[in-house]
């Protein structure tokens, strides 16, 4: 018998995601993949798997699942209330899911995108080198009640490990580099972008995240006649009404609206995970600085496995750990909580 996970009840926006399909811009296909790539890497580290292992992404709300045989799972990204057969389990940790047990995942208590990882990874047919859904391009599907997901061979055995996530579920500071069209904006508007708080608006999905600037729309000098140009995930597009829109992993590949700046790849999870109303503060950094930041982040992600530690089983401490899941807005004990 091969391992399978049944979806008894699917949340409204659940898809399978990996690191996406970089390299297809020439076809007009954006990279896609997990909205929070750090969460994908954290789950893979907990289970001792490659970072691009296919996992289940849940926007805002989880679902109910049942395994046909014993399997390992890990839970990362936006913390959600989770139970196995009614017993609360810790987020940002790996667990054993026994055959027939019910895994129930509720609403996010902070952030937007939660991830369910399985030992061996979900197995799906690759297309152009990846198996992730890219709904905007018509690749893959939304997962539904009653779907059964095939699972690859699990070569690991460790469970009950936990990882301290970087807090990125409440907005906060986001670093930018210039985009192709940053120079079209006047100094006053670039200064304002770095001085005023911007709030995440209601409209947000895997394609883009709308922002509301405190001081109203941004002015573009002669920016309405810009020739369509390459769009990159992280670009902050200023639409006709002056409103900023951060383009995310499933964005279009070209666009005619000018971009005021581009979010550093290592800060994009913070934008993806910012809940509606959260405050984001932007700051331009030099290219050299940006490269150093990306280098540090790549190193940190490669070493995530070293930061996993045994999940404490002391009943008194367990209660504290579980409280991370049960109290809205608190993810771990020691991070700064910004902008709620």
């Amino acid at each position, binding site marked *: 018998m091969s391992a399978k996970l049944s979806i008894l009840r699917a949340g409204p926006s659940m898809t399978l995601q990996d690191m996406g399909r970089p390299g297809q811009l020439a076809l*007009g296909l954006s990279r896609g993949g997990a909205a929070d790539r750090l969460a994908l890497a954290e789950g893979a580290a907990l289970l001792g798997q490659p970072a691009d292992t296919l996992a289940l992404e849940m926007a805002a709300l989880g679902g109910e699942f049942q395994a046909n045989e014993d399997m390992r799972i890990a839970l990362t990204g936006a913390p959600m209330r989770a139970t196995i057969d009614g017993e609360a389990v810790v987020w940002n940790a790996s667990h054993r899911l026994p055959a027939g047990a019910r895994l129930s995942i509720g609403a996010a208590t902070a952030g937007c995108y939660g991830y369910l990882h399985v030992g061996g990874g979900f197995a799906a047919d690759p297309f152009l080198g990846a198996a992730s859904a890219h709904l905007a*391009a018509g690749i893959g599907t939304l997962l539904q009640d009653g779907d059964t997901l095939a699972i690859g061979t699990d070569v690991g055995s460790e469970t009950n490990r936990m990882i301290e996530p970087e807090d990125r579920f409440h907005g906060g500071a986001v670093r930018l580099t210039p985009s*192709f069209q940053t120079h079209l904006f006047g100094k006053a508007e670039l200064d304002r972008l770095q001085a005023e708080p911007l709030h995440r608006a209601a409209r947000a999905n895997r394609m883009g995240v709308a922002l509301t600037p405190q001081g109203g729309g941004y002015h573009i000098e002669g920016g309405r006649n810009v020739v369509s140009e390459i769009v990159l995930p992280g670009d902050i597009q200023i639409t006709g009404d002056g409103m900023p829109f951060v383009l995310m992993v499933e964005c279009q590949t070209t666009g005619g609206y000018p971009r005021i700046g581009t979010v550093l790849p290592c800060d994009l999870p913070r934008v993806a995970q910012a809940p509606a109303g959260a405050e984001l503060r932007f700051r331009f950094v030099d290219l050299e600085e940006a490269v150093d930041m990306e280098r540090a982040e790549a190193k940190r992600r490669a070493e995530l496995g070293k930061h996993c530690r045994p999940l404490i089983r002391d009943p008194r401490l367990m209660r504290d750990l579980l409280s991370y899941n049960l109290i809205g807005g608190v993810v771990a004990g020691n991070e700064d909580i910004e902008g709620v």
Partner: protein
Amino acid sequence: MTYPTPEFPMIRTGGVDGLLISFGDKLSEPANRAALAFRAAVEAEGWDGVEETSSTLVSCFVRFDPLHLPHDVLQAKVETLLKRRNWFDAVLPEGRRFWRIPTVYGTDLAPQLAQAAAAAGMSEAEAVTSLSDARVRVQALGFSPGQPYLGELPEVWDIPRQSQLTDRVPQGALVVAIRQFVLFGVSAPTGWQHVGQTAINLFQPKADEPILLRPGDEVQFIATDAASLNNMRSDPDGGATYEMIK
């Protein structure tokens, strides 16, 4: 932040891992040919650390790994390659095809024909003749998979994009503005005017070649009627046919 003065070719960075080499700030035939040819040349160089290239209407885009290929090193390589020749004189790529794509102009399938014709100063009948006679070229793919920007249309079609977006045009919609067509690969909002409707699937994930049109291909949008188009919907190519350009 410093930027070069706007002379072309112009090199700009975008994000931490992108370099854009532009051959103009608005669409022109030489700039488009230069972008296509320069992208092919960068591909042929096979520089270590370059992760992908693509071309847009007037630019070649290079995405690279800045942790292994520093910005200044790549920029120097690009500058050397730019000096190799006059890229504006480049010829179009080999293996180009001429497509005929059946299209219903106007009717409730393409409700903005009348306003687009008015903007171009024509009757609806004149507009259909003008648009269906035009042989346009795929200048770039982008926005959604396999979706082409096509041009250049006669000068009367230098009509602006709408200030208000149309909520949604269907997949296969042919839209017009600024002397160009866009043929939509997905259903999406747009500021361009919806003048024709086709049944073509530009992106066929399960096919051996998932993308139908390529930059350099030429296209004529042949007028047909709604009943005929409906019959073509069972064909993934929507009745489109092509011959090689010799």
